[in-house]
């Protein structure tokens, strides 16, 4: 018995060793690509906690923003030759998940490391945290529950959170609260919705070139005005100041997916 165990342990270790060596060889000339998420409201830069209602939605309703955070995950880059770089995702949330928090400037830039050299034509990512991660249990890093972007009563991450105020909101304190989440689907539950949105943004021919010496940065704009006015319609603060559950978020989730676009590339 002992001999068999030793033999298998050696075989097992050898296998791991070989796999590691292979990875190292291919990664020597890899580079870094940065994705910057710049949050704006139409033509204005987004600022938190403005003293007045500094912004306006498409319906002309004034508002201000006190909190804006969202999760970006499962990032992929497509190369000119059609192959993909897939940003690795860890089972415990420590890799591959990014919390973009307007209040924390450092969080606005995602650094994709170990990207193979080449010209890249588009980026694909999910906004939110998908069902597969939920089955892994308690998480760390950006998915640490201390951060509080989580529905405890209906287990799941809040993918995109915007809070603020508008004089036309009928909620207490003229509040605006939009919490987008929901990934559960079950047979026989027609209103359980998957609000996870995977979007692909092309670089429009202005392809970032990744190699060991270049450090390109893709400037992505998230326009909050589009979150309130997009393919799923125009959201009025006067009649719709709160969204707190998966089914109630279906329209804003669709708008959310259309609020991101690539503005330019810094090579």
């Amino acid at each position, binding site marked *: *018995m*002992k001999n*068999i*165990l030793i033999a*298998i*342990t050696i*075989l*097992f270790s050898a*296998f791991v060793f070989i*796999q590691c060596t292979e990875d190292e060889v291919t990664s020597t000339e890899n580079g870094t690509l940065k994705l910057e998420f710049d949050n704006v409201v139409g033509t204005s830069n987004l600022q938190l906690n403005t003293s007045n209602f500094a912004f306006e939605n498409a319906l002309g309703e004034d508002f201000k923003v006190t909190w804006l955070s969202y999760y970006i995950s499962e990032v992929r880059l497509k190369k000119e030759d059609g*192959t*993909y770089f*897939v940003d690795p995702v860890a*089972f*415990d949330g420590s890799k591959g998940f990014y919390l973009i928090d307007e209040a924390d400037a450092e969080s606005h830039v995602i650094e994709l490391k170990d990207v193979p050299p080449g010209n890249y034509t588009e980026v694909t990512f999910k906004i939110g945290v998908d069902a597969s991660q*939920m*089955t*892994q*249990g*308690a*998480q*760390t890093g950006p998915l*640490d*529950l*201390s*951060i*509080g972007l*989580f529905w*405890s*009563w*209906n*287990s799941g991450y809040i993918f995109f959170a915007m809070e603020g105020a508008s004089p036309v909101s009928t909620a207490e304190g003229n509040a605006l609260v939009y919490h987008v989440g929901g990934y*559960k689907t*079950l047979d026989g*539950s*027609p*209103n*359980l919705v998957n609000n996870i949105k995977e979007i692909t943004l092309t670089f429009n021919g202005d392809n970032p070139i990744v190699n060991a010496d270049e450090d390109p940065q893709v400037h992505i704009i998230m326009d909050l005005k589009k979150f309130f006015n997009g393919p799923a319609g125009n959201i009025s603060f006067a009649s719709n100041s709160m969204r707190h*559950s*998966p*089914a*109630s978020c279906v329209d804003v989730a669709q708008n959310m997916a259309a609020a991101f676009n690539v503005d330019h590339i810094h090579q």
Partner: protein
Amino acid sequence: MTCQKASHLTFYLTMRVILVVWLALLILSCKEQEVSNPYQFVIPDNFPESKYSFQNNPITKEGFELGRMLFYDPILSRDETVSCSSCHQQHVAFADPLHVLSIGVDERVGTRNALPIQNMAFQQFFFWDGGVNHLDFVPINAITNPVEFDESVGDIVDKLNASSFYKNQFNKAFGEKEVTSQKVLHALSQFMVLMISANSRYDKYIRNEGELLSTQEQRGLLLFKQNCANCHSTDLFTNGDFLNNGLDTDENLDEGRARITEFNGDKGKFKVPSLRNVALTDPYMHDGRFNTLKQVLQHYSNGIKTSSTVDNSLFTNNSPGLSLTEDEQNDIIAFLQTLTDESFIKDKRFSAPLMPKQ
């Protein structure tokens, strides 16, 4: 699937096979010398597969013991007055012996009767409305609910990080002194997954371990199979579904499962609870409206109220109720009492730990 992905998949599958063989041999070799380890998760012979993600949170004695301390420590509530054990007491299979509805901080009254904590590793959905779908996330619901602990996860982590006692315990359990929410939840899960109740007289009878049921209990078992096991199925005594068991008419239906599914067709539906230790876990139903099993059996027999979502299996010849005679009800109750697991409610592994003075 990309080529790279496919090769990774093959790699992981190969690795998995090797690991499984390796572990199997390891286990075999262990079995030669070792007796049972009280911190090992063992699925009872009459139970289904576990649903818990053990691969991300392997049980250790130290992790389990830490979870046990946290379970009994009111530090998890905002004003440190309420612990998990306030509403989940061992002598009644970790249900609440005192309160019809759970009581939280500042004597706030909740909306539900506390469910027992047992056989958690085998459940897919938790709480009466099934809103939580992983055991690790169960404590979060109680912690953040304003009528329960009214506390934030971040504050708990800060409080524990401020305690040198707890930092040492986390170090023993996870090899790092720093407390994180993941470690808190993992420790609590390690404690809860081992809370297996599978040693009742019924279990010993069904596993042919020398236990016999009386003739009344056997009659009760037969009646139970005919009338109740449609929903209270398997040896977990639940089919895991959400159903309306005829407690109220349409105008009084509780939101129930519809809170999660946002579907009116789920109003008045609740998780079909396990019936293990049911003789201990009174009061009954989501709102604790029945005090005795007799009342419960009377309800199913001739108290079913019809509504748009009531379950069809609760009708006999198109009339509501299962029409059980008094004797039949008593037989079923006699059977249900065989589901009481004395060894579970007396198991010292799950009792309040002795906490050193801090």
